[in-house]
């Protein structure tokens, strides 16, 4: 008898696993012998229960239809594969932690901004294989609560494919993986399975930043520590990044409503995040309201935003935006929230029964100064979670509360990775921006040798197949000649109003002056150069990489076709409160030492596109006359 009791005692933990209900029994008041007696009794019960359930199980596996078994096996396989890509993220200061998901074999990993906020440029990450990897921060989106980090040390990381969150419907099954409550000492992710409760949800901003637009609502259990982790569809594709929950009187844990940032939004921002910048969301430059017929109406509009230049006015009805029909202000905000600053987005409006489609360039939601506060600095101690959001328990939190990391302090970042981080004002990590700039300038170099600085270019051809034109470009003066008139631009830096005179009222000459600078002097010609990210050219064209340059208040955005690896055009903003001027190159042809454009299209808001055909281009040495 004694022996039996001992064995029973030893196995107690196993039973409590097998029979969870027994765990809840209160043993506190029991004396030793009655505990033993209880264990014995429970042992008998558990053995009975196990035997019976095993019997039921063996019978069931034989009876379950093949289709059900196959579905279950498929699900297990999907989860097995997905779990390998799930990342447990720990800041180096050992405080807190969250989750992430690998999206490329090179180690690119999506997570929440609020997981990496204040953690410094280097992080420690654990995968299901139990290995701790170093990781470096690349870019952050404080408004959308997204960050991309790069895991280091392998080129064959397991990763998960991205799904299409626009096809997700309420009632779909969805599973989340991550490290809730930082439970996994060995980094094996925790799986929770649930249902999509709603799509295209709009969550009001918490504080000034962090707005969840167009997000996916799930009843899948999302808890502190799940932040930044993936939401998968049943095929194991990432459809969102979990980052927010509705909490209320039950405490700061799952209350049946979790929110994931839709993956399609993150796809829009992906290259922006890879630029190492603090990326910004967008505004139209106009506000909307809904009228008594549930139409969405332009309420106010700034007189110097692109939408205004394109013809949008107060009182116009927004019919569709971003390719989606708009029936409520929330829908409008949902669409607006998924695009980065600077994208051109289609907008259809109705005025007096007339429908008009325009492509509007979105402007930044925040000022540079506002974004600067998020630029990376050394890891700072985080505020205690209780200090945030003390009131209003019904409001969703600006993110899940952080978890205290119970694990030991991770080792410091090895020296070998130190070069992967470059501090620069306004950037999360300038290193990755510089790499992209170098890549794009290499593409420009392939266009040939344009004679270096101090050259005079003469380009000849026809305008709209009719009158001939001659365009002369140099560093200090530009000239455009057509039979009816001749316009000269002298680059008098003291008198910017001359930059917009005559034919050049659209900024055409200044656009070409900058173009020549880019091709001859490169980055040296500008006070500031950075890689922006990517966008569909003019809202509907091919994806282009965008390089931005700044020089004396002139801003240019240079476009490089990602697939064709070709320089395809640019936009210039000559000065504030003046519409942009756009040049779209038709193609390039090699002539000797350099390539020349075969022609271009001039784009000015509110005007019909104007085609220029180029027949020849010459490059000469040019000595600018000495100024008196």
């Amino acid at each position, binding site marked *: 008898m004694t022996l039996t009791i001992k064995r029973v005692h030893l196995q107690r933990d196993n039973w409590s696993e097998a029979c969870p209900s027994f765990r809840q029994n209160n043993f506190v008041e029991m004396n030793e012998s009655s505990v033993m007696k209880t264990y014995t009794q429970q042992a008998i019960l558990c053995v*009975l229960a196990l035997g019976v359930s095993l019997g039921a199980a063996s019978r069931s596996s034989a009876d379950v239809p093949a289709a059900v078994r196959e579905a279950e096996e498929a699900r297990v396989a999907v989860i097995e594969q997905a779990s390998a890509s799930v990342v447990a993220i720990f800041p180096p200061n050992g405080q807190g932690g969250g989750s992430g998901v690998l999206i490329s074999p090179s180690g690119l990993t999506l997570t929440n901004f609020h997981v990496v906020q204040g953690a410094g440029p280097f992080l420690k990450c654990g995968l299901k294989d139990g290995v701790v990897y170093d990781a470096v921060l690349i870019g952050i989106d404080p408004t959308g609560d997204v960050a991309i980090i790069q895991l280091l040390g392998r080129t064959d990381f397991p990763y998960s494919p991205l799904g299409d969150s626009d096809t997700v419907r309420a*009632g779909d099954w969805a599973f989340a993986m991550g490290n809730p409550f930082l439970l996994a000492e060995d980094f094996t992710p925790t799986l929770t399975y649930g249902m999509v409760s709603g799509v295209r949800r709009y969550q009001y901003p918490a504080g000034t930043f962090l707005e969840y637009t167009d997000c996916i609502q799930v009843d899948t259990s999302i808890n502190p520590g799940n932040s930044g982790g993936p939401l998968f569809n049943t095929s194991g594709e990432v459809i969102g990044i979990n980052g927010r929950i*509705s909490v209320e009187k*039950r405490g700061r844990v799952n209350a049946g*409503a979790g929110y994931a940032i839709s993956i399609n939004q993150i796809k829009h921002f992906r290259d922006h995040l890879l630029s190492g910048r603090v990326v910004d969301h967008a505004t139209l430059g106009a506000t909307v309201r809904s009228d008594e017929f549930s139409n969405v109406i332009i309420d106010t509009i700034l007189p110097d935003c692109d939408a205004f230049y394109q013809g949008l006015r107060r009182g116009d009805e927004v019919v569709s935006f971003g390719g989606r029909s708009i029936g409520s202000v929330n829908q409008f905000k949902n669409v607006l929230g998924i695009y980065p600053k600077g994208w051109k987005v289609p907008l259809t409006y109705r005025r007096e029964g007339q429908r008009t489609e325009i492509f509007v360039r979105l402007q930044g939601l925040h000022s540079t100064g506002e974004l600067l506060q998020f630029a990376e600095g050394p890891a700072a101690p985080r505020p205690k979670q209780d200090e945030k959001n003390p009131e209003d328990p*019904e409001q969703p939190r600006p993110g899940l509360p952080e978890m205290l990391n119970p694990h030991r302090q991770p080792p410091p970042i090895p020296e070998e990775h130190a070069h992967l981080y470059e501090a620069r004002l306004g950037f999360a990590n300038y290193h990755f921006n510089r790499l992209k700039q170098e890549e794009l300038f290499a593409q420009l170099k392939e266009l040939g040798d344009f004679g270096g600085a101090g050259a005079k270019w003469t380009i000849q051809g026809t305008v709209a197949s009719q009158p001939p034109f001659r365009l002369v470009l140099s560093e200090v003066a530009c000239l455009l000649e057509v039979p009816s008139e001749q316009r000269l631009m002298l680059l008098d830096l003291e008198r910017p109003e001359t930059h917009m005179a005559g034919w050049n009222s659209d900024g055409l000459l200044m656009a070409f002056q900058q173009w020549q600078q880019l091709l001859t002097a490169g980055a040296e010609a500008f006070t500031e150069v950075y890689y922006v990210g990517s966008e569909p050219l003019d809202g509907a064209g091919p994806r282009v990489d965008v390089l931005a340059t700044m020089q004396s208040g002139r801003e240019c955005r240079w476009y490089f076709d990602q697939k064709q690896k070709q320089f395809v055009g640019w936009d210039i903003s000559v000065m504030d409160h003046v519409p942009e001027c756009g040049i779209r190159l038709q193609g390039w042809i090699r002539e000797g030492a350099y390539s020349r454009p075969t022609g271009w299209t001039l784009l000015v808001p509110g005007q019909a596109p104007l085609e220029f055909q180029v027949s020849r281009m010459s490059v000469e040495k040019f000595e600018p006359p000495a100024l008196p």
Partner: protein
Amino acid sequence: MFKPNPRRFLPVLLPMLLACALGLMTARARADTAPAAPSDISDQVFPRIVKLYGAGGLKNLANYGTGVLVSPDGHILTIWNHLLDTEQITVVLDNGRRLEARFVGGAGEAGLAILKVEVKNAPYFDLTRIPRRGPGSPVLGFSNMFNVAAGDEPVSVIHGVIATVTPLDARRGRYDIPYKGDVYIVDAIMNNPGSAGGALTTLEGELLGLIGKELRDSRSNLWINYAIPMYDLNETVGKLIRGEVIANDRMELPAVVQELDTTPLGLRLVPNVVARTPAYLDAVLPGSAAAEQGLQPDDLIVLINDDLIQSCSEFYKYLRTAKRGDLLRITVRRDRELLTVELPVPDFSR
């Protein structure tokens, strides 16, 4: 002290086994006919659910809720709660249409209410065909939880399993809930702000019950997730729709128990409903010393003998310790004025 007795467990185990076996059989039966995906079912259910906006908006008292359409003419069934304590109840249909609702009637110990909006040929739940389901049945819950679904978005859908069907033993604040019928207890976190009046359905989208308001279990004090089964309530709802008065079946708040009968003092405080109910006078006995010295209803007691009185409870506590014949110097606040009266402690028949 708890002593497990095997004989107590066997009766529990046997039904569990039976339920398992039954569950397996039904699972087999279902697998033969491929069921519709929950997303397709949700699309069918969404048009039958409406969002309600009414009174509330204070902390922990949501001004949003849920209802289900129960007739093609726009009768909406919901839970009778604070949301309806207003003339202006707005209903938002699945397609985003906003309509003003009329209160038709409310009754039944289940605390049901019927609203009406002017629509024709609305999709609705047929209350004459309500299935019953037992423990282990998978269910869907549809509601305007947390008011996430703003604008014209459909409400939220969540999934769960009926854990048990059992009489409701719950309370709200300090009051027990008068409804003592069976409810579906669900394993999903279903009863959230704004959920009350939502639909509990089968996986096929058939209405099973109405999601109830947020309640705590009387004994464990835990929030419970439950829905009121509709299978027996068709007649009640029918009467409500026809405007018939349902006698003796009206949900009333239980009579407020005064902790101490203060009538001998010539005054009565407001019902002590929350933990720190301010000590406002509810009534002053005409002709009493309290009335003669000028106390009025709605005066707020702030001091007794210079001791701060912050709640009804503190007032009662003070009276219990006072000796008969002592003088009570009571200071009350009325608007911005302070008024002090002196009353002898009477004989409270405790």
